[in-house]
């Protein structure tokens, strides 16, 4: 089986191209579950299959992954009846690319796929007490800078999540393109949720969320995913370092401490290139004013005229150290996360105390490892 998969994988884009064309010709109704451009979808399919093949001998590992996938696929509108169709097209694809295909191989693949599908379907059914997705009304939408917006959503029905988690989000303006965002607040009694969006150049979803979505629009949310592994029960003091919209999950952590405790000192550093780009300054300063345990420091790396702290945020953080007694959370662009982590470790912070999350332009969703990655 591995050999025949390797043959299909060696065909590169041809194999998933064949697979999806075969699927859509056999089941035209499945086409509407996918976005217009399938290029990325094709990469993801074989990536996922490759991961399944890799873990196929390690069921303890594979089964939870498949269960998660099965649950998450509900938001795409996937139902049990779709699975045999996918299986048939998958086998047709493998057959097409394997010149030594034989009935025995076909039988093994059919059985293996049957097991995978069954695990996913059962997980999806077990999750049926939760809605497959949540509708969320945009309550307010505020453009803070030329490319950043902060909006408040009201999910229906109640949307259970924890501070630091991510949710996938889809808009009718860009159907079938799901992107991950982190709520910037801990769960509130009124259920409202704050979302920070930065429009990336040419990014279809982020630009639409910043410039085309407004109050009254309805977005869809997928189930929340484990993410920046915030440990709410530790009572160690916190150091939070944010770059760009990586601020969102860290602001949620601050909000969590404010709402639910335990009492701990929190130092939040927010890095930005220029002063104008600090999009949430007013609210952060308000919080710092309300909570004596919270300090907020802004740093700019490319704005000589600004009176704020000068330098890369990691540099500024270390300048104010030492932080060796803290739980540290870092979220932002890859370069910033790497730089900050390196500096902190060099400065004596134990690496296991540092948890980080990279905010990349297209956060398309978790890989099979459960990590949200590019």
């Amino acid at each position, binding site marked *: 089986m591995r050999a025949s998969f390797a043959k299909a994988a060696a065909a590169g884009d041809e194999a998933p*191209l064949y697979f999806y064309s075969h699927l859509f*010709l056999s089941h035209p109704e499945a086409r509407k579950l996918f976005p217009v451009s399938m290029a990325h979808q094709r990469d993801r399919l074989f990536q996922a299959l490759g991961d399944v093949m890799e873990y196929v001998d390690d069921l303890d590992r594979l089964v939870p992954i498949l269960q998660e996938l099965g649950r998450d696929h509900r938001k795409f509108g996937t139902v049990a009846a779709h699975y045999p169709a996918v299986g048939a097209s998958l086998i047709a694809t493998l057959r097409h690319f394997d010149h030594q295909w034989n009935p025995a191989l076909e039988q093994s693949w059919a059985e293996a796929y049957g097991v995978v599908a069954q695990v996913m379907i059962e997980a999806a059914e077990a999750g049926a007490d939760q809605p497959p997705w949540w509708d969320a009304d945009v309550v307010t939408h505020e453009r803070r800078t030329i490319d950043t917006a902060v909006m408040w959503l009201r999910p229906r029905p109640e949307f259970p999540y924890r501070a630091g988690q991510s949710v996938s989000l889809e808009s009718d303006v860009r159907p079938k393109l799901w992107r991950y965002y982190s709520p910037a607040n801990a769960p509130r009694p009124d259920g409202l949720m704050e979302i920070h969006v930065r429009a990336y*150049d040419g990014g279809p979803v982020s630009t639409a969320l910043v410039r*085309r979505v407004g109050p009254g629009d309805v977005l869809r949310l997928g189930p929340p995913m484990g993410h920046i592994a915030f440990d709410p029960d530790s009572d160690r003091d916190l150091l939070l370092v944010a770059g760009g919209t990586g601020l969102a999950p860290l602001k949620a952590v601050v909000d969590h401490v404010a709402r639910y405790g335990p009492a701990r000192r929190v130092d939040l550093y927010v890095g930005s290139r220029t002063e104008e780009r600090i999009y949430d300054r007013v609210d952060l300063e308000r919080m710092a004013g309300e909570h004596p345990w919270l300090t907020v420091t802004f740093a700019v790396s490319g704005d000589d005229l600004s009176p704020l702290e000068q330098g890369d945020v990691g540099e500024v953080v270390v300048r104010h150290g030492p932080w060796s007694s803290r739980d540290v959370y870092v979220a932002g662009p890859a370069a910033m996360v790497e730089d900050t982590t390196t500096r902190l470790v060099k400065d004596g912070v134990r690496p296991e105390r540092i948890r980080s999350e990279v905010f*990349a332009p297209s956060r398309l969703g978790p890989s099979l490892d459960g990590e949200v990655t590019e």
Partner: protein
Amino acid sequence: MTADEYGQARAGRRLTPGDVRNVQFARATMLRPGYNDVEVDRFLDRMAEELAQLHAEKAELRDEVHVLRDQVAGAAAVEPPSDQAVRILATAQQTADGYVAEAEDFSRQMTADARAQYEEQLRRAKESAGEIIHAAQEAAARMVGGAPAVPAEGGSGGERTTQELEDQVAYLKAFAQACRVQLRAYLEALLTDVESEWGRADPGSLPQAPIRATSHRPEVSRNVAREVPLDDSTSERPAVAKGEGAEVATRRRGS
């Protein structure tokens, strides 16, 4: 056939309606009139067995019919598409993907250019605002510096000096107002410029355009553009993409 004959045949042959209709039981002994009850009982047993078997077979067949019926329905719906059809659809999909990627890349370049221009002009505006303020401060210093010279000029005394200072304050206020107005006009012009640049990059997003009016335009997916070589000058994306790749790789290794 006699009941006994029937009993012997039971292992090999099914009971037919004719068998039942024509069955003959032997006469019993003189002491007990009627049929031989052993034979009758045996026959009834056999009948019961036969009926049970028929029922079971019937159920089996019914299931089989269901399965076959489903298979027929499934087979009719899923006629495997020909390789030629698959190729045609694949080509069409690739063409669509190419268009989407191109549109997205164009939008990316336009937005990046617009952003660069916006930041450059904002920087210049800040600089020139700084210069204006600086010039105003110098002018004020000169006037204040000039004031002590006034009394030396003639005998009008302190009253005239106060009058002059008030004039100067009024003049400075007017000057500051003029500066502000000019600066605002300049910044607004910049903003319009940036909006129109952005508008060219993403016409649907301009505030004055109806929000849904352009939703029919081709869907763009950012990932696609990865396949299109990026012009080095357009953005910092290649560097970012590299970083992300490294991050993913690290995680996967760590897992």
